[in-house]
């Protein structure tokens, strides 16, 4: 018999080995199917995650572009020279150099006497290549002639002209470097899109040139690099090469400054993903080859040589490997290049100019990593199989470690046996922990990153207010212009709104600072004229003396808790008692330098016909208490003191906090109350909800793709667990049959299996929460150029953990049921005879 086999193999061994390989695969269908699935899943995961991941990166850059309003990496501000522009244009790593300039602000229109809007001019490069990505819709054209304006719906509404369309006319009073003018304009175009420039008009080059502003002192250069990743050194060198003047400001975007760190973090994530794919294949391969050592030993006893055996195993793995990779890539292509774009289209998500593309590099990487894992994974078990003697092979049981002398047996039988299972199969335990923990960690990491994107809307105030209403009835030169737009009835309506938790009001009254030569008002008017070059100091002084009301200022009152916050932000330099009793005030910064000497000095002002005096305690550079348009200074005093100055202060702004942030109902009601206010055109509102919507809008597609990636990873991790468990059940079914034959009931088997599953789940969750939090924190911080505080996305993480737990508990039971099918104990035992 033996002789016959040897002869047969020697004569025609190629075809015999081929036949044997095919037959073995056929008879060990399950084992090979598991291996096939693992290879398929890994190549699928690599391909689709990298393809979708690249789209995600594109989308996150698009979001930056949208939030910044245009695409640029570096801005040179406060003017630039033509030479500097040339230097930048001549660089090979620069993609585009755009020019943007501010050239005036609108004060009123023929429909609204108090308007807050600016004039901007951008050159062709700026508008057509840098701004284009943030523009979603454009009607008409960029202004060509002096009287043309490019508008947004927002700016038209601010001018009280929301009914205007392209071709419409409006009259605007604006201030530029040469003075205040009133001119008729034609709307040449209206654009929709993203950016802080939506509250401005774009003007033509001709218009810009007559406003008195020049590029050398106030223009902005915007530079976009060809590459998305730049080293800090390159940027530093570029900065040096420009020879900047003292007043020029060179600003690299937060993104490009950290781009290299981000790249490394992304590569790190890729590495983890590749590593997990690699480990999985390696281990499943290892387990499935070593699980058949007995069979290979038998082949050797029948006379197969080592060389033949090695070739035989390779043949099997090659067959499974090639089909697995091919199927995985095909599945990856269908999911990431057909299904994902389709879903995005159905959901109506705009991806701008990005999308899901086929990257040959991704294909190569996926095949390479999978193939490498197969090649490495097959080497060791092949050696074991080939080196084991036939007799050893028959007894081969894998890497069971002989436990040292048993300590006292204690505790629950099932827990003990479950623990032993994990301990005795270190390799399998490691694979399960790794695959589950890795997918949980990557899920954790990605949801944290995605979640932080959603929290890019962070309010600078200490309250994290949900809604702010400003009274903007005020005009610059008319002390009587301020109207009680926010009155008691309005205030109580808002307070009475169901979802409102707290309302703070900043109140104020206009005051006049009498002109004193060399005094505070003299200093102040000097500062103002520096910022408005069309005013001369001497004209302003004589005007001031004639008509001090024209240069009125504002006294604002704040309550104690706001004082505590403000004082805290100033370094607690103000004596609390003095402030509350009205002895000191805080001066609000107005755009020019305020020398130290004014701090501690007293200034006088008058309300109505009362004369007052107050000491300046500090200067506040924040504009949280509302920007006012008056020429004169703004003083912040205590609420009580303000009330002692006047019986009827005006409410300048309301800060509203909801019981539930982003509460749609409350938001709607407050907007209705504002709508019903007769001054509604002069009530300026800032809403956290709207900001959140804008940000969400700018992120279109990001959240979805990110979620798809993290869910894919979670899914692959879970499938891998199922796979590993199915494999281990395959190796353990004899054990269970024996246990049942000596009286273990199915219920008891299940108890044991559930405990094993819980140990796997517990271990992976523990790794995720410890090491995973560390990794997530590290990756988050290195990618966090927006300086968003680190926060764990508790809900998705909890859901994922719960899912993993359920899966861990159920998988072994289901696979057990599947191996048992309806067969009796004896039938199952016979399989091994």
């Amino acid at each position, binding site marked *: 018999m033996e002789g016959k086999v040897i002869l047969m193999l020697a004569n025609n061994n190629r075809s015999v080995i081929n036949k044997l390989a095919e037959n073995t695969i056929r008879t060990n269908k399950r084992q090979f199917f598991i291996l096939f699935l693992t290879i398929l899943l890994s190549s699928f995961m690599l391909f689709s995650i990298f393809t979708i991941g690249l789209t995600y990166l594109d989308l996150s850059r698009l979001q930056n572009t949208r939030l910044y309003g245009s695409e640029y990496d570096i801005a040179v501000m406060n003017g630039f020279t033509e030479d500097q522009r040339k230097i930048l244009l001549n660089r090979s790593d620069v993609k585009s150099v755009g020019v943007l300039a501010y050239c005036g602000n609108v004060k009123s229109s023929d429909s609204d006497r108090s308007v807050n809007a600016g004039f901007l001019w951008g050159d062709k490069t700026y508008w057509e290549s840098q701004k284009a990505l943030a523009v979603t819709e454009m009607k008409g054209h960029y202004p060509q002639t002096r009287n043309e304006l490019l508008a947004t719906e927002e700016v038209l509404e601010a001018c009280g002209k929301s009914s205007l369309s392209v071709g419409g006319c409006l009259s605007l009073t604006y201030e530029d470097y040469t003075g205040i003018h009133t001119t008729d304009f034609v709307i040449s175009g209206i654009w929709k899109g993203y950016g802080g420039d939506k509250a401005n008009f774009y003007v033509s080059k001709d218009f810009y040139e007559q406003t008195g502003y020049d590029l050398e002192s106030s223009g902005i250069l915007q530079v976009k690099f060809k590459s998305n990743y730049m080293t800090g050194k390159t940027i530093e060198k570029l900065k040096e090469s420009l020879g900047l003047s003292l007043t020029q400001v060179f600003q690299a975007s937060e993104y490009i400054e950290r781009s290299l760190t981000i790249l490394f973090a992304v590569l790190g994530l890729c590495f983890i993903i590749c590593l997990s794919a690699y480990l999985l294949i390696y281990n499943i391969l290892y387990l499935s080859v070593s699980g058949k050592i007995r069979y290979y030993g038998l082949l050797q006893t029948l006379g197969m040589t080592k060389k033949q055996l090695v070739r035989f195993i390779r043949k099997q793995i090659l067959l499974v490997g090639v089909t697995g990779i091919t199927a995985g890539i095909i599945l990856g292509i269908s999911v990431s290049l057909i299904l994902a774009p389709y879903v995005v289209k159905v959901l109506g998500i705009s991806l701008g100019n990005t999308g899901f593309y086929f990257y040959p590099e991704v294909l190569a990487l996926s095949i390479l990593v999978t193939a490498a894992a197969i090649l490495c994974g097959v080497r060791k078990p092949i050696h074991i199989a080939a080196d084991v003697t036939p007799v050893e092979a028959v007894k081969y049981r894998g890497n069971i470690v002989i436990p040292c*002398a048993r300590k006292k047996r204690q505790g629950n*039988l099932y827990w003990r046996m479950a623990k032993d299972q994990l301990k005795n199969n270190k390799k399998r335990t490691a694979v399960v922990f790794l695959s589950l923990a890795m997918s949980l960690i990557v899920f954790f990491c990605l949801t944290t990153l995605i979640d932080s994107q959603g929290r890019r809307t962070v309010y600078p105030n200490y309250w994290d207010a949900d809604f702010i209403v400003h009274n903007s009835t005020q005009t610059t030169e008319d002390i009587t212009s301020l109207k009680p737009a926010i009155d008691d009835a309005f205030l109580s309506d808002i307070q009475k709104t169901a979802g409102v938790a707290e309302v703070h009001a900043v109140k104020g009254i206009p005051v006049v600072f009498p002109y004193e030569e060399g005094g505070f008002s003299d200093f102040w008017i000097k500062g103002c004229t520096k910022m408005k070059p069309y005013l001369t100091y001497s004209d302003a002084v004589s005007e001031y003396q004639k008509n001090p009301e024209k240069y009125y200022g504002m006294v604002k009152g704040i309550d104690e808790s706001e004082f505590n916050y403000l004082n805290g932000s100033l370094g607690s330099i103000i004596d609390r008692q003095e402030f509350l009793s009205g002895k000191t005030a805080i001066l609000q910064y107005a755009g020019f330098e305020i020398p130290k000497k004014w701090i501690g000095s007293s200034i006088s002002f008058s309300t109505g016909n009362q004369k007052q005096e107050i000491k300046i305690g500090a200067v506040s550079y924040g504009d949280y208490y509302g920007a006012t348009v008056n020429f004169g200074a703004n003083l912040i005093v205590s609420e009580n003191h303000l009330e002692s100055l006047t019986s009827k202060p005006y409410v300048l702004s309301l800060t509203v906090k909801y019981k539930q942030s982003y509460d749609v109902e409350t938001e709607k009601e407050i907007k209705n109350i504002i709508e019903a206010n007769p001054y509604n055109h002069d009530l300026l509102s800032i809403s956290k909800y709207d900001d959140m919507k804008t940000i969400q809008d700018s992120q279109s597609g990001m959240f979805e793709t990110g979620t798809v990636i993290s869910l894919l990873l979670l899914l692959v991790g879970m499938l891998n667990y199922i796979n590993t468990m199915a494999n281990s059940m395959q190796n353990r079914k004899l054990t269970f049959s*024996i246990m049942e*034959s*000596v*009286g*273990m*009931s199915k219920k008891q088997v299940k108890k044991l299996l559930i405990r094993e599953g819980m140990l796997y789940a517990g271990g992976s969750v523990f790794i995720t929460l410890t090491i995973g939090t560390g990794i997530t924190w590290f990756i988050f911080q290195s990618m966090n150029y927006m300086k968003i505080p680190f926060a764990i996305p508790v809900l998705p993480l909890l859901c994922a953990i719960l899912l993993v737990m359920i899966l861990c508990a159920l998988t072994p039971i289901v696979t057990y049921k599947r191996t048992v099918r309806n067969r009796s104990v004896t039938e199952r035992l016979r399989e091994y005879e």
Partner: protein
Amino acid sequence: MERVIVKTNSLSKHYHIGTQTVIALDGVNFEVKEREFVSIIGKSGCGKSTLLHMIGGLDLPTSGTVIVDGMNLSEMNEEQLALFRRRKAGFIFQQYNLIPDLNIYDNITFPLELDGAVVDKEFIQELVETLHIADKLEMFPSMLSGGEQQRAAIARALATKPAIILADEPTGNLDTSASHDVIGLLKVIAEKYQQTLIVITHDLDIAQMADRTVRLQDGKIWKGK
């Protein structure tokens, strides 16, 4: 001898392999009284193991009934059968069937642990010493010789002091003197704990140690020439 503890009524077991039907047992009527020692002999493939499996609650008959200690096994659900195997029957398999993941001691005490019962350490010690495997307790089944594994399997079957001991060629791998020792031990223990003993064997010497010998042929009880 008193009451009947095992009774089968026209017990049949058929196996279907594709379109073929193998009749392993064919209307077997068989009785064993309490505390009796019965040996079963017969040619290979005549259905000895199948019969023992039915009595041990390891498999269900195609037709007919098996009543053990007043319980009709064919009417019991899986849960009850498992309890029966654990508490009433001690089975010694032809292939030993030790649990590869557990060491010998754990293998022996496993059915007790399943019941959450307190392990009678002295009794176990006595068992393993008599069976000469006291020094193998920390080892795993794969490290033991066939005979040692067989003795471990015997220890496991006896550990729960079952009412009925079912042994499928318990001496298949033992030399003659060891075989006699093991059967002797089984007899002593069975008498001590008032157990019923059913042993399948090829060894006529051993068969003769029993109170009664039953011969199976082609799935039927052989009624003598």
